[in-house]
C-alpha cells in the first residue's frame, strides 16, 4: 500500500475557502437579522448625533478664532460653482454667436468606416 504524505498547504487553502463560505453564509444571516439592523440603525443615529454635537463645538471654536466655518466655505464653493456655470454658459453663447471664429478644425482622428469581422473576434 502506497502512503501519500499529507499536503498541509493544500489542506490549509481548502479549509480557508470552506471557512470563508461558511462565515459569509452564517455571518450574512446574522447581519440581516432584525437585532443587528436595529443595532446598526442605533449606531448610525449615534454617529449622526456625535457629528452634530461636534459641528456645533467646532463652529463656535472657529468663530472665536475668527476663521470661516465649513458651512461658510461650502457657501463660497457653491458661489464659485455658480460663477463657473455662468462662464460656461457665456462661453457656449459666444461660440453660438461667432461660430466661424471658434470653429475647431476637424480633428485628424481615425476614419469611421470599420465593419465587423465575418467571424467574431476574440
Amino acid at each position, binding site marked *: 500500500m*502506497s502512503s501519500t504524505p499529507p499536503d498541509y498547504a493544500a489542506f*490549509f487553502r481548502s479549509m480557508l475557502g470552506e471557512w470563508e463560505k461558511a*462565515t*459569509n453564509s452564517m455571518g450574512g444571516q446574522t*447581519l*440581516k437579522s432584525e437585532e443587528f439592523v436595529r443595532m446598526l*440603525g442605533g449606531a448610525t443615529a449615534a454617529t449622526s448625533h456625535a457629528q452634530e454635537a461636534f459641528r456645533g463645538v467646532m463652529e463656535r471654536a472657529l468663530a472665536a478664532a475668527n476663521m470661516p466655518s465649513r458651512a461658510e466655505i*461650502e457657501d463660497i464653493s457653491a458661489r464659485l460653482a455658480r460663477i463657473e456655470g455662468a462662464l460656461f454658459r457665456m462661453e457656449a453663447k459666444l461660440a453660438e454667436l461667432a461660430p466661424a471664429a471658434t470653429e475647431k478644425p476637424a480633428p485628424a482622428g481615425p476614419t469611421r*468606416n470599420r*465593419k465587423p469581422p465575418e467571424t467574431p473576434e476574440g
Partner: protein
Amino acid sequence: MNAPAPDPFLAAQAEFERALRRNIKGLEYLASPAPVLGASAKDVLVERGTMRLYRYRPRVDDVYRVPLLLVMATTNRGYIFDMVPGQSLVEYLLDHGFDVFMLDWAPPRADERRLTLESYVLDFLPSAVARVQEETGEPDVSVVGYCFGGVLSLLWAALEGNGPLANLVTFTTPVDFSRMEMFQAWADRRFFDVDRLVDTFGNCPGDYLYTAFDMLRPGTRAVTGARLYDQLHDDEFVKSFRMFDRWASDILPLAGEYFRQTTKLLMWENRLLAGTLEVGGRRVDLRRITAPFLHVAAQHDHIVPTEASAPLIGMIGSADKEEVVLKGGHVSLVAGGNAVKRLWPKLVHWLGVRST
C-alpha cells in the same frame, strides 16, 4: 495504475522554497509602489463638479461609426474599466475599433450635496452624450452602464434616449431592489434614518458605503490577508490582488439628496419595478427603450444578485434584446482574467455588428 507517491523530502523542500520566495516577495510587496491604474491615454473633455467625461485616444486607424460611452456607477471609480495594460476593457475596446468615452465621477463636493437623481439623469448624462455627438460628429451613441451607472442609463434612455441612443448595454443592473436582501435589511425604514444621515453629513460618506459593501461578505475580509500571504510567491496573484483591493477600497461618497432619493424611491418603494418612478416630474417607462439592448448579469454577484436584475429584460421595449448570465462575480464580470475570456469578446461582437 497508481501514480507513484511523491517523495516527502522533495515535497517538504518545495514547500520550504515557496515559503522562502513568499517572504522575499513579502518584503518586495511592502517596499513597492501600488500599480498605476487607469493609465490609458485619454483627454478630459468635461470636468464639472463631480462629473468627468474622458475620451480615450484611438489605437487603430479605422473605428466603428458609432461612438461608445461607458457610464460608471456613482459609488466607484471608472478605472475598473481600465486597470493595467492587458487587463483593461478600455484598451480591449480601442484595439477592437471602438471610439471610447467614459462618464466617470469624482467625489461630490460638499456644496454638491443637493444634486439629485434628476441632476444625473437629466443633466450629466445628456450633457455627456451631447459632447460625444459634438466630438465625433455622429448623431447616435452606444451607452454601456455598469451597476448603478446602468440604472442611470436606463432612466435616461427611457426619458430621452430615443434619438441619440444607438445601443444600450447594462452590466449587473438592478431593477427589483427588494431582491437585494442585505441592502434591504440595512435600509429598513424602521431603523435607518436616511433623513438624519443626509441632514447631518450632507453627502453620504464613502466610509459608510465601504463598510456596507464589506459587510456583504463578512468572511472574505478576514481571509484576505491569509490568502495573500499564502500566494505572495505568485506575482500575477499579487498584482491582481493589489489592483482589485485598491479599487474596492476607493469608494466615493454619494451626493446627499441623490442618496436620500435612491434610498426612498428605489430601496424602500421599489418604484422602478412598479413603474411608478418619476424623474423630473416624468414617469419612467422602460418600454419606451426601443434601441437594441443587452443585459449581462453575473452568476455569483453578491452585490446585485441575479434575481434583482432578472425582470429587466422583460421591461424593455426593444425588439432586439438579449440577456446573458456569465460566470463570475460583480467585479470579476467586468475586469480581470475571466472577463477577458467571457464578457469582453461577447460585448465586442454584440456591439460591433450594431455600430456601423
